[in-house]
């Protein structure tokens, strides 16, 4: 089982609804965010092009709930764990705040909560999905860009989306950590 979020990048309109919804739901401290939007570009469509021949897309970023997460292997206490459902979670009781996981994550999505002195990141809204719901950012998404489900279940909506996308489906750069979230990009060139 591998819960994951599949993002249709072309539908993301950079509205921050997911970012703020996550804050309201999960209360990370001020200055910290568990999901953010990156702007990729604008880049020349073809080498040497200039405005207006440019393209861009938005990249909603969060923990990628990797298959072989570096953050888990470096964690000395076992606070960071890969769970049965495929999500990567942090046991706040065990975390010593050494922040090796912060360094080990290739995408920098973890941050120390200076108030509680433990490291935090996207939990895939475990409190909501456990109750059969959807992650808050997914329900909040204005553009209908975010989809949640089990990638190991070929009949899930997300698996179908990914299958349909074929080579338009991408992951963030993989350095052995095996990111599971999938990004589908139709029109523009994937540049990560």
């Amino acid at each position: 089982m591998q819960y994951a979020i599949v993002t249709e990048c072309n539908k993301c309109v950079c509205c921050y609804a997911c970012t703020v919804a996550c804050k309201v739901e999960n209360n990370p401290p001020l200055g910290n965010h568990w999901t953010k939007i990156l702007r990729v570009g604008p880049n020349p469509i073809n080498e040497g092009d200039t405005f207006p021949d440019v393209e861009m897309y938005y990249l909603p970023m969060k923990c990628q709930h990797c298959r072989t997460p570096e953050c888990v292997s470096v964690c000395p206490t076992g606070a960071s764990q890969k769970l049965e459902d495929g999500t990567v979670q942090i046991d706040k009781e065990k975390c010593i705040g050494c922040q090796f996981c912060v360094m080990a994550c290739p995408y920098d999505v973890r941050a120390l909560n200076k108030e509680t002195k433990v490291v935090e990141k996207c939990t895939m809204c475990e409190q909501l999905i456990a109750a059969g719901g959807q992650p808050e950012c997914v329900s909040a998404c204005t553009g209908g860009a975010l989809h949640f489900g089990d990638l190991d279940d070929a009949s899930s909506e997300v698996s179908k989306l990914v299958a349909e996308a074929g080579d338009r489906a991408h992951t963030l750069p993989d350095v052995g950590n095996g990111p599971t979230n999938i990004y589908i990009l139709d029109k523009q060139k994937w540049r990560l």
Partner: protein
Amino acid sequence: AVLAPGSLTGLEQASAEELNADNGEVKRIRSHCRACGKMECPIWVSVKNGRVIKIEGDESAISSHGNCCCKGRGAMQALYHPDRIKYPMKRTNPKGEDPGWVRISWDEAIQQAADGLRKIVEDPKNNGWHSIKILHGTGRTTTYATESLPAVVGTSNQGSTAGQVCKGPRIASGAMIAYASPHWVASNDGAKCFFQWGTNQEVSNYDTAGKVAAEMKSNSEVSICVGPRLQNLGKECDYQLHLRPGTDDALAQALINVIIQNKTYDELFIKRWTNGPMLVVDDLEPSGFAWTNKYEMPGAYPLNIRTRLLKESDMVEGGSPQKFAVWNARQGKVTFFDAPSGLWEGETGPTYPDPEKDCEVLHPSYLTPEDDNYDDTAALNTIDPGFPEALNLDPALEGEFEVTLKDGRTVRAVPVWQRFAQRVAYWTPERAAEHCWLDADLIRETALAYSKEPGMGGIMYNLPIEHTGNATETCRTILCLSGVTNNIDTFGGNRGSDLLYFLYNTYFQYHTPFVDNKLTPDQSGQCAGAVGEDGTPGAGRFPLIPWAGQVGNAAIFHDQTTCTDQIMSGKPYPIRGMISCTGSHFHSGNAVANWEAFKTLDFYLGWELWWTPTIELADIVLPARHFLENTCVRASQNGEGGFGAMVKIVEPMAESKWDSLSLINELAPALGAPWWPADKSQVPFLGQFGDAQWPTEEQALDMSVITMKPMDFMGGHVMQAGGPTELGLDGAPLQFDSYQDFCDKFQEHGQWSLKKMSPFGYYKRYLWGWLRSVEGYFDSESEDFMVTGKPGPLGFPTPTGKFELWSTVLESYPADTQGVEREVGLEDDYLAALPIVREPYESPYQTPEVYEEYPLIMTTGHRNPLYFHSEGRQQPYMRELYPVPHFQIHPDTAAQLGIEQGDWCWIESRRGRVRETADLFAGIDPRIIEADHGWWYPELPAPKHGWDLSNVNVLVDQYAQDPVLGSTTLRAYLVKVYKATPENCPDGHVVPRDPDTGIEIITSGDDPRLREWMPLTEEEKEAL
């Protein structure tokens, strides 16, 4: 505590008690969001232990499909903000200093306010109530009593300054040539073509929910986006026209030109429903008639129509000036169209389409019944059956015809269409491409894609085109583009809103509650901008403003620039007082000029939620309620036809009150101004409210719903076509016996679809008479008075009764050009009746000498999803994400100027300079920048709160105005940009700070001052 007993809410008392009971249970309550003034999305509010803990979109909402943006989701941070204004306050220090606010009681505040205002009104040097200005900002459902106060007390300087730069021109230009506010597209229909022109609704939610805009785009066949830079959703569009700011007027003409050249226009619509076939005689002394758009409001402002269109009165002695001549090609002779009755020569009554043959039922195209927000509404579409055969009529669109006038002269007459085609012919794609900085082929392809077939979809033309100095012309030209391709009031087309026609009696949201427009034309003609230099009503620079206000829904306005000048000069009469309920000094006109003027006012009363810069100039401040503390009727502004309630979720904080109600039943009595007439027998729907003159909150709310009556559906005519006729719970007509009843039903049902109700459910209402109401609608002598729901004459509510490609209003009231020649491309004679292209006041071509020193074109105000104009800078979840203002600049331009990402820079115009930070963005033309608007810094001290450090309207030329309606040129002017350095910053600091105290602005998400702005629960407060 939540929900005091007896308060009006969407919940029954029992649930109120449940909520009070500290049982930790989560209650979900349906309401409408008003964290922005636009969509007002239906939402679910979760309450736990009496506290709002979560706000989500209501998936079942037909207008918004469950949209809930970041502002809505974070709204409780405003509700519970520690810095909200809590009590009535009075200043103790002179204006321009820290006001030294002291708390006073509500009674004292109202009394002192009434005294302060009365002193100005009674001063013989002043001009009565005209010497009091109303300042109202943009859309806030619960504050519109301020918009009706002028009718109660009689001031012409009414309305929302925002209206002049926002919607006013679109609504009024629509009313001039078609009907009010046709820029609204029923986007939830799902049109074939997604067409955004100067708008990014996916983040502005204007007035289409971002979610619906995104869906509409995804499901469209063709998508077009017009705007100078790569936009959030626009970047996905098939046709992206990144034009030079302020050249939309030329582009619109070029697109129409391509369509005419390729004959891809809809000929039947043009012949039957536009004034295209009407004959123009150059050699004719303009003549006409007095016209009031009387379908709108009593005491309507009369316009003096003077036109060169050929009328019966020009040809026949004693002929009617409202019968317009058309060349009937079938019979080779002139025939007349009678505008008031909407009938052609030979017709005795309206010919309606045949419901059996011509009508079809349509459902939103891309949703299925399985979708939560599928609107099972069957909207009634009509296929135009054409001219009745009996008329033997085929109006000529081209040709030259000899006609004999009543004075015996034989003159040449040509159809309007031919003139119109000649006018736009100047704008070849090539010429427009050069002018607009576009590609000619792109213009050509866009025009053909849009006109691939008639009725591809409406054009969502929004804000920016009102901000570049030619607002009225640009709006009407784009509307003409939609018109010639038959996208007016079609499925997914330029629909407009039905509020005025259907929900007449729930007018509550705009005129709280119903107020008769008692201003006479002589009175309303005295408003700033319309009054002549010698004080003559209606003889000023903008004589159409009083008329525009009347058709304008909430977009009622006076001229901000002239008003500010009047405050300073006292001429032609002094303006000495102000009442504000929302609104600010830095959103239209020049911010500095307004600030200086407002500082000198003798008395200023305002309602506010926050200590904003503008309110720091007030004498008395009253605390306003947050939307989660208020209730009112909510109908979606756009063409979607949603209807429901905003519900009071929690008890108001401290002594805050519903601003509109305190104005109606506290300020008005203190002024001795009756809000309701003592004798209500002559006012529709008021009879049952006794002889109270100042309604209570309960009466006002009841009034807003119990007056809704089932409609008279044309004698059952439409039902045969399968047109839906029922609405409400269980198919019962939408009827309520009290406001409480309405709220209860709303809790159960959620948003209703007005499309289930005729005439809202109709498309192409001009075919059915639903765009023009019967005479006597507002006339208490008429037998139709008290009756709603009867159709009027067919056609459009314009002087010619048609969609006016030739605007008789603009022909009669040619624009005030202040001697500044900006017209481009006039190859024929000057004819104000036809669309006009104007170069922006300041531009590389209009003012090349200025361009040398200010080499960048500035456009401003693209919406930041986190902030509503100046609002939200003190909400931690908003500010942490976007702490400082930005402007977008091309990396090449930035490199030339030595500017790097994130650098604080000066942006300077001939008027002033401000600091914002650079965002290097390769999706904007290197010759253009786009800057944030609305900035001030709540963390800096009173009275200025740093507004002059970064607010972009410091740079504006307030005299660069739309020559018809006076809208300020807020975009498309010239600036220069340079990096801020310690040497060129007045206090040696690059990052802005308060000049007196040296306090720095917040520049990062972990600034401890943001923590102080976090809402605290009682327990948290105690724990401190």
